[in-house]
Structures are given as C-alpha cells and as structure tokens.
C-alpha cells in the first residue's frame, strides 16, 4: 500500500491508491482544463449569455414594433409588482406548486410502499407504473384533456350514465376545475419518478426492524410514522426540493390543457412569460418576469444543491 493510500488527515477517509502526492503534473492540469473548456463554453453560450441578456433586457422596454430596446430602468419591475393580475400569477404558481408537489410525493410514497411488498406480479406492476413517466407530457395532457372534455369526456360520460349530472359539465371552464385538472395531470406524470426514489430508499431499509415493530404491536400507521418516514427523510428532502423546482418550471401540460385559462385561473409564471414573450411580443416584460421567476426558483435550488454537497462530503 502506498503512502497516499493511508488514512487522510483528520477525517479518517481513505483516498485513492492511484492518487499522486503533490497532485497532477502541470501538463495534465492544462489538459484537464482544456477538456473542461467545451463544457464551460457551452454553459456560457447556452446559459450564462442568455441569462445576462435577459437580465439586461428586463431594464428595457422592447416590443415587436420597436426596432431598438429603450432603457426604462426599473419600470418593468414596478409595473409587475403593482399589477394585481401579474401578482395573481405568483399566487397561482404557489397553489399549483404546493398541490402538485404534495400529491406527487404522498401518492408516490404510497405507491412505493405498496410495490415494496412481496406479491405475485410485483415486477410487472413496477414496470407498468413507469408508463406515465415515459409518456411525453403533451400526449398525457391531451389524454387528460379528453377525460375532462365537456362534450366527449370520459368523466362526463360516466357521470351522465350514473345519473349524477343532468347536463355535461365543463370542468375546464371553472377556476377550481381547471386547476384540479392540471394538478391531476402533473401528479399522474410525476408519481413514477417519486415512486422510484422512494423504492430505492425502501430497498435499503432493514426488514427485521419492521418485523420487530410488528411483533411489538405497531400497526400500519405507526410503522410508517415511526420507521419508514424517518428512514426516508433524506430521500424525502431531496424529492420535495426537486418536486418544487420541477413544478415551478412546469409549462407544457398546463399550456396544452388549459392555455393558462379559464380567464387566468392556471396562468402560472411559466405561462405568463410565454404569453408575454410569444403572444404579446413584449420581450422586456417577459424578461423581467423571467428574472423574478428565477428568484422564486433559487431558494429551493440552493437548498437542493446544499443537500447534494452535504451528501458528497
């Protein structure tokens, strides 16, 4: 065993037996940096430059009929922060993110616990459970759109057949109905992903611990509350943050299902940015909204990265 393979100072962690004292040679360092260069260039070109441009544009008025953007300082921010309808988009986003994240995690966890039990056909069911995840989001939106459709929808057909309603109900034409529909669709798409996270977490759980709890007389609720949930806490933390980030960024199913309506009932920030940029062609305002949207994503993203770094240490 080489010296380098010895216990590293202070923390008791082993380092690679191939590691060289004194680090890389200068030539190797340069080549390492060279290999990094395409990724850095791509990041600068695809992420950093557009972001800086959008940030700069947020201080300008720039609509389609203008040949050049005009400096307006913080006026776009003032207009957004004093516009009740715009502020309503932040509230709508909060409702969507909270509901979609909560139900995705609750149902994903329930499904994972169910699929963690030994029973015949479990593997097949696990495989089938991934179907919504592999389905393109827009296809899923149209599928759910047809279920909720007032004229041809499955929901109305069933309700009419059972005598629960006298006339077809336009589910997507009420604020609550439209929000429910977009949340249901997003949850349906997200369950497989969260289920996979939780299944991986459950795989490392000590079965004997659960059996001992059962012997001590713990029921299902106590087992979940006192044993499964504490065990899954790190996974839960990451899934909540990931879920929030994903739902804050979410656009496609909402746009395909309701277009942000009726009126503005499902007009979350992503939809609002799209409408400003590509329907109303108010690029300055769209950039401003985009910057504010980014600030809403930053806290959970920071929290997620911190958890990742902690895990890596």
């Amino acid at each position, binding site marked *: 065993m080489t010296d380098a393979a010895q216990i590293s100072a202070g923390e008791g962690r082993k380092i690679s037996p191939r590691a060289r004292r004194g680090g890389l040679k200068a030539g190797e360092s340069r*080549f390492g940096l*060279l290999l990094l260069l395409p990724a850095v260039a791509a990041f600068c070109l695809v992420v950093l430059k557009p972001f800086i441009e959008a940030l700069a544009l947020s201080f300008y008025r720039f*609509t*389609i*009929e*203008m*040949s050049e953007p005009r400096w307006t300082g913080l006026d776009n921010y003032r207009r957004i922060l004093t516009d009740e309808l715009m502020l309503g988009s932040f509230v709508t986003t909060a409702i969507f993110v909270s509901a979609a994240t909560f139900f995705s995690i609750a149902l994903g966890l329930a499904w994972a616990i169910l699929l963690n039990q030994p029973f015949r056909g479990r593997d097949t069911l696990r495989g089938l459970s991934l179907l919504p995840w592999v389905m393109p989001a827009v296809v899923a939106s149209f599928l759910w759109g047809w279920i909720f*459709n*007032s*004229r041809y929808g499955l929901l109305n057909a069933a309700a009419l057949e059972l005598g629960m309603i006298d*006339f*077809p109900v*336009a589910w*997507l*034409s*009420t*604020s609550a109905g439209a929000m429910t529909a977009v949340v249901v669709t997003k949850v349906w798409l997200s369950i497989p992903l969260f289920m996979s996270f939780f299944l991986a977490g459950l795989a490392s759980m000590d079965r004997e611990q659960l059996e001992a709890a059962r012997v001590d007389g713990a029921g299902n609720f106590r087992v979940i509350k006192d044993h499964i949930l504490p065990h899954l806490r790190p996974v839960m933390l990451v899934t909540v943050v990931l879920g929030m980030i994903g739902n804050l960024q979410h656009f496609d199913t909402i746009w395909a299902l309701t*277009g942000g*309506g*009726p*009126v*503005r009932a499902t007009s979350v920030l992503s939809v609002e940015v799209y*409408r400003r940029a*590509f*329907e*109303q*062609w*108010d690029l300055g305002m769209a950039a401003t909204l985009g910057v504010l949207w980014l600030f809403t994503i930053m806290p959970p993203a920071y929290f997620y990265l911190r958890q990742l770094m902690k895990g890596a240490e």
Partner: protein
Amino acid sequence: MSHYRKIAMGCAAALAIGSATHAIAQDVEFMTWTYAESSGEAMIQGMIDSFEGGSVEPQGYAWGEMTRNALLRARTNSLPDVMQVQARLLPTVANIEQMVDLNTVFDREMLEAMFAPGFLAYGEVDGRQMALPWIGGTIGMVANENVLETAGISEIPTTVEEFREALVLIRDTIPNSVPYGLATTNNNSIVLDYLIWVWTHGGDVIVDGEPMVNSAESIAALQFMVDLVAERLAAPEIDRPDARRLFGQEAMGFYFDAPSARRFAIEFSGDEDYAQYVQPMMTPVMAEGDEPVSIQWGHVIAMLNSENADAESAAAQFMLHLLSDDQLLPYTANGGTIPSTASGQADEGFQSDEYRAAWAANSGTPRRNTIASLSNGALVADIIGEEVQAAILGQKSAEEAANDMQARLIEAMANAE
C-alpha cells in the same frame, strides 16, 4: 494520436457536417400552414411540383405557430423566401425587417390590374405593399341545414330574436347539442365573435383610437353572449376547431367561420356530399333593415430577404405562379374560398359555384378587424378575451367585465408605442 489532434479532427468533422447541410438548400423556401394541414398538403405540393422556375422547399408549420416562428427565425437570420400570412396578422408580421415592400419588386400598375378591386389592400401596411393577396372572403355565419330541418326550423333566421328562437328549438330537439358555436375559449377566437356581436348591437370596440367597450351597446352585446351560455344555447370550452367538429357531426346549428367552413364540414361529417347542407347566411341583425356585418378575412403571401427583391427572382416568380389561374382556381374551389385576382373572379367556374356566390352575397358589410391592426393587438385581444370569458363563466357581471375591460384597454393603449 495526441489529444490535440483528436480535438482538431472533431472540429473538422463538425464543419464538414455543417457544410453538407448547407449544400442541400433549395431555390425557394416556402413557409406555409396549409401544407401542414392534411386537407391542404396535396394542393400545395401540386403547386410546388408544377413550378418550373426552380426548386421549392415547403416548410409546414401549424397555423398558430406561424407568426411566432417567423419572428424567431428573423432573429437568427434564417427566414424563408416566401411566406403565407393570415391577412389580419400582417401588421404584426410586417415588423420583420427582412420583409420586402413589393412595390419595389413589381410594377404598381401591373399589381392594380392583376387583383380584384379592394383585394390589394389586404397586403398593405402603412402605405407599403408588404404582401400580395392570395385568397379572400369574410368571417361570416354558417348554418347546418340538416340540423335546422331536424329542429323544425324552416327559414334561416334574419334577426337576433329569430336567431335566439332557432337556438332554443335546436337545444330542445337535439340532445346534448350546442346550438350555436360561440367561441368561449382561446382569446383570438373570442375576439372575433365579440367584435361581430358588438357591431351588430350598434357599438364598436375602438372609436378614434379610444376603447369604447363599456358603452351601452357593447354591454348589451356582452350580456347577449352571457345569456346564450347561461341558457345552454352556447357552451363554455368551445373554440373554432370544436365548433367545426360539432357542426360536421350535426350537434351544432350555427357558428362563425371563414368560407373554408365547407371543407371542414366535409372532413368532420365524413361525407363527400355534405357541402349541400352548409348554408352561408347573413349575421342576424337587431332589427329588420339593419346592415348585417362580417369581418374581412384572407390569406396573403409575403416575400422576405432583400436578395429576392427582383421580379425575375425565383421567389418572385413562385409568388406569381401561386397567383396564376391554373394554380389559384383549383385551390380556391377546393377550399371554398374566393380568389384574389381579377381573372380568377371572372372565371366561369368560380361564378357558377353556388356556395361561394352565396357566401359573397351573405357577407353584408365586411369590416376590418380593428384589433388586429393595433400595434399591441395581441395584448388587446388577451384583455378582451379574458374579460369576455370572465363574464360568460359568471365570474363577473357583463357590466363589471365591460368596465374592467375598458380600464385595462385604456392602460394598455396608453403604454403602446
């Protein structure tokens, strides 16, 4: 092989692929939504195949994506040479710097002789000829005669009162029907129906550049639309495509559409002979003697990129090819639309087409879509659509919605450039 040599070879391969892609460019790139529709693809392909002035690459986009893609392509300097444009959206598209003023390409006198009176204006923006008119017509009302017969309606309604009575008959006779396909979703569709009903009630949306949507007439029009939905004579969640489908499936009696309504009725009924039941009609009026209204409608073709700005260029020749009688007459006959050219309208086949003649006769007084020509027309359409929807869905009274609409429009127009 050194690391540096590998990188150099990778770059060379990427360059080679880029060059090869560039080498297969066509003489004319034609951006069109009709090509993306199953009912129009063969017609456009036929027009392209018969063009002898060069090779043409059709670039099909969905109708709703055309303007967006044109503006995005303008930013990356990858615009096509020729582009199909919805006439009412031309003021927006004309903001693209690479659009060619066709007065600099074609002789003005030749253009004036070529097109039927009034049609050349479809392609004008601020005194410049930004496009040539291709097909025209109006957004007007159509009735399904089969549905009317089933409901026991013997005559096409001419007044709003008769229209409402006919709708009640359809509702009570045909289960789960939507008697009238009032557009209640998609702001761009809602605006068209709203404009027509406001005009019909004697009001207007914009007067001398100022919004007038909370006048007594405009509120009455909005209340009329609200009542139709409340009484199940119209339905929420209806956009133009839904109306076309329900109309062809005999679950709808009336709706507003372009002359291409006939083509959609055939497609959705699955019956090649269904055209006989599609009856163009005048928009019902408040009182006998009032002038029925409709909205000007049409498709135009625009030229992009200054290198095409020559009457002998392949792009210019392709535009003229699309407008030649040989191409235009079958195209308009198939779509049930009106050719823009004087020779096309003088054609015997066109003049003997009962449907198109009836459409023209029932257009009443077509008016220009005043919303579309505003510089911030998309924002104005969104405001109108949202407030109309709020009233229709019962979130606000018609008066509240009209007042909110007025306040929002005043602010939007004050902020316009």
